[in-house]
């Protein structure tokens, strides 16, 4: 029997202009989620800033001053965030009046792009897994594996500039692929759930890294600290706009792979089989698609992308490894993939947004003293709003159509 599901409540559209927007596309809901998160962030700024709370306590006697200070406090914070992440108006003024200071002008944008590069790469990897119904929670470990392989090829192989760096990148991809292959083959052969094996592999890689950082050949000679050797100049990714800006060829790799992933999912036969298995593994098997092979390939590919994320940071900006390398990138990649709805371009924009919030957040902390945690909270809130389209729909009185289709696609946790 196929009667339709439960009745859906139709909220009355109070804000008329949103009605047409709402039917346009899912980007609207994502955008509105960002707005909602920033509004909640503003509330957080207010309630965590003692001076603002103090004047708000006397709002009855000095309403103008109280509201003015509140607005200024929130405005300053977000202004600092913006100018730290995109462009600083004062630097712009300086350039316009003197004709100098271009590097300072573009530093915020460069930093955002640098931060976005590994997020996008690892995010693509996680997204390819998610859209195939494979939950790779091991980007962290695969990133480290990739970075280790890249580092090894970096300091161990002597090659001229122009050949060395590409080889390092390939080595990084191979290292990550190897780390993804293991959970893949375990799942295909024994049915071990990839969520468990990839998470465990993170610990293996973190500790392997710690070990390698304290022994030859990885440890920096003459150092007793757990610091690796440095990448030689030939193995580094070239800067794109001179040595003053850190943005490097890693960004090009990321952009190329966004384009490649778009082609892969839309046009390649392998990508098609991935999608089929992701959406309905039973129909896939019945149609002759080898689901086990797909599982192994997906995890290998996903690992390769995470490995590239580690390589981009290592060969682009850091040049050496230390304990806990990669920080939260492996986990942020999961959020980026979710926010980007597992689509390559979505991942690109989500990665840029997250990077901007992070880089801008640091500037906000430096300028206004509001802790960086606010940026992290905002990131989390954005994803929560996107994950609950019903809530966004209620807040903004959107029509059902756009928001209803916007469920984050992580079905099939059962494996």
């Amino acid at each position, binding site marked *: *029997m*196929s*009667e*339709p*599901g439960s*009745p*859906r409540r139709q909220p009355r559209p109070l804000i008329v202009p949103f009605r047409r927007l709402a039917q346009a596309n899912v980007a609207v809901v994502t955008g509105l989620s960002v707005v909602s998160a920033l509004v909640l962030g503003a509330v957080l700024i207010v309630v965590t800033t003692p001076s603002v709370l103090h004047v708000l306590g006397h709002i009855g006697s000095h309403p103008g001053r109280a509201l003015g200070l509140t607005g200024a406090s929130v405005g300053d914070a977000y202004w600092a965030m913006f100018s730290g992440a995109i462009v600083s108006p004062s630097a712009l003024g300086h350039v316009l009046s003197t004709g100098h200071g271009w590097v300072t002008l573009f530093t915020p944008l460069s930093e955002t792009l640098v931060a976005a590069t590994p997020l996008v790469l690892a995010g693509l990897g996680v997204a390819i897994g998610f859209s195939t119904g494979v939950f790779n929670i091991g980007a962290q470990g695969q990133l480290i594996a990739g970075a280790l392989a890249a580092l090894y090829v970096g300091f161990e192989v002597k090659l001229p500039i122009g050949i060395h760096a590409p080889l390092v990148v390939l080595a990084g991809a191979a290292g990550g692929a190897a780390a993804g292959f293991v959970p893949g083959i375990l799942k295909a052969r024994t049915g071990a759930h990839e969520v468990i094996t990839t998470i465990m592999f993170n610990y293996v890689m973190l500790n392997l890294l710690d070990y390698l950082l304290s022994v030859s050949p990885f440890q920096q000679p003459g150092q007793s600290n757990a610091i690796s050797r440095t990448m030689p100049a030939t193995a580094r990714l070239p800067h794109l706009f001179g040595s003053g800006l850190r943005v490097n060829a890693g960004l090009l790799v990321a952009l190329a792979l966004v384009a490649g992933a778009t082609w892969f999912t839309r*046009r*390649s*036969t*392998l990508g*098609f*089989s991935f*999608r*089929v298995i992701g*959406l*309905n593994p*039973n*129909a*896939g*098997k*019945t*149609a*002759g*698609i*080898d689901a086990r092979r797909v599982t192994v390939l997906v995890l290998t590919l996903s690992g390769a992308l995470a490995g590239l994320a580690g390589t981009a940071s290592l060969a682009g900006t850091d040049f050496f490894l230390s304990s806990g390398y990669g920080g939260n990138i492996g986990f942020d990649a999961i959020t980026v993939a979710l926010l980007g709805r597992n689509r390559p371009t979505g991942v690109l924009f989500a990665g840029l947004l997250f990077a901007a919030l992070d880089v801008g957040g640091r500037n906000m902390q430096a300028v206004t003293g509001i802790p960086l945690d606010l940026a992290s909270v905002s990131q989390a809130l954005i994803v929560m709003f996107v994950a609950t389209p019903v809530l966004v729909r209620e807040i903004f009185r959107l029509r059902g159509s756009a928001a209803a289709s916007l469920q984050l696609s992580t079905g099939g946790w059962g494996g």
Partner: protein
Amino acid sequence: MRLELAGVTKRFGSLVANDHVDLTVEPGQVHCLLGENGAGKSTLMNVLFGMLRPDEGDVLLDGEVFRPADPGEAVRRGIGMVHQHFMLVPVFSVAENVVLGFEPTHRLGVLDRRRARAEIRKLSTEFGLEVDPDATVESLPVGVQQRVEILKALHRDAQVLILDEPTAVLTPQEIDALFAIVRSLAASGRSVLFITHKLKEVLAVADQITVMRLGKVVGTTTPRESDENALASMMVGRAVELVVHKEPARPGPAVLRVRNLTVADERGALAVHGVDLEVHAGEIVALAGVQGNGQTEIVEALTGLRSVVSGSIELDGVDVTGSSPHEMLRAGIGHVPEDRQRDGLVLPMSIEDNLVLDIYERQPFARFGSRDLGAVHANALEKLQAFDIRATSVEVPVKTLSGGNQQKVVVARELSRGVKLLVASQPTRGLDVGSIEYVHRRVVEERDKGVAVLIVSSELDEVLALGDRVAVMFRGKIVGIADPSVDRETIGLMMAGSGPRADEPIGVAAGAGAPRAGQPER
């Protein structure tokens, strides 16, 4: 108790699932609600049982307005429902299942088993519902499990019984037994609402018939004033052909040769036990049997989805035993799976992608690992035309299609590959009469082109209409091969296992092939 629906309307968005439905079930009457899938029967039933609230109209019990807030209230007011999928706890005994939720207890809340048993015996004898109160539900045949469901409703003192498609999983003999029970329920003064889409059943059991189409009541009649053709055209809205027209088969050489095939199910129990079967070019072999007697496993073995324990499968003289699904498809097997939504289609994907689901990597749909979306699109447009698939566009997700059109997508895809053997499981399950006609015609056309066809169906009508030979399965074995001209009674008896060799138990677990409660139907 007299059950009356007065102008019941239920809308889902713009769709009107029930449009001012009027219906009265008198005490002591068996009232059949007849309609195709999607006619609004389920919605109506959910309204009656308190799972949905009507937007307009009322449900009246003995003239009094009744608005159940939840199924619990419906049960307390004397409405009993026997669902299509049983709601039983497989590992509990019959008695425990019947009293569940309304247990007779000693003081301190200890279950009074003796009283439970006594209550069940009393109800059993009163209505001819033979069942052992101490048997574990999972060990019982489906027909008996259904009796447990009915007992459950009676134990809760149901005065109105709603039976939802109760015959779907029964053998012809079990169906007759059910009809006897239904009549005795009515004779006791209870009202029975019998929901079905099968015309023969309606004529056999009903006192009153209400026919629904697209949410509306389109007519009320009685078995005496009507016949199958009249009911069918009322249900579908146009005159329909109930028989399949086909010439006698002209079988060629054997295309499929199955020798001594043994296949195990998920739990390792033998589901198919030493089956021999041949299907020749240009003939349709119908594999009949009550669901869960190994038909699913045979099909899965033939299509490479399930590994073979022993025996061999030959296709055109080539041994293909143990091949992967991919190799089986390449070898020329077309497969219309039993559950099209689960195994045949990727519902969120477009119609055009679903039409190439198992040929997506072949020319002209792909070259060097890159898909040719133009060719995929052109193929879809052509198939839409050739197979009369009703869709607004080939780019819409296949889930937006009706069941009949979804099935046509599967059939179109499988027939477009130039197959030697077509294996179709339950090819018309859940389809409307029009789509059934169409699918049957295409299958016969394939046969006439020289394709060997194996149809698996639990619908006896379909088996007899389509098959050139009928093989009957019971507990993992083929108990006999019959000519379709043989009478229904004989095939029914074979389906129930009273053919030759039927008494031999098979498998490592007792009754391995028999369907059990709490287990998915496939």
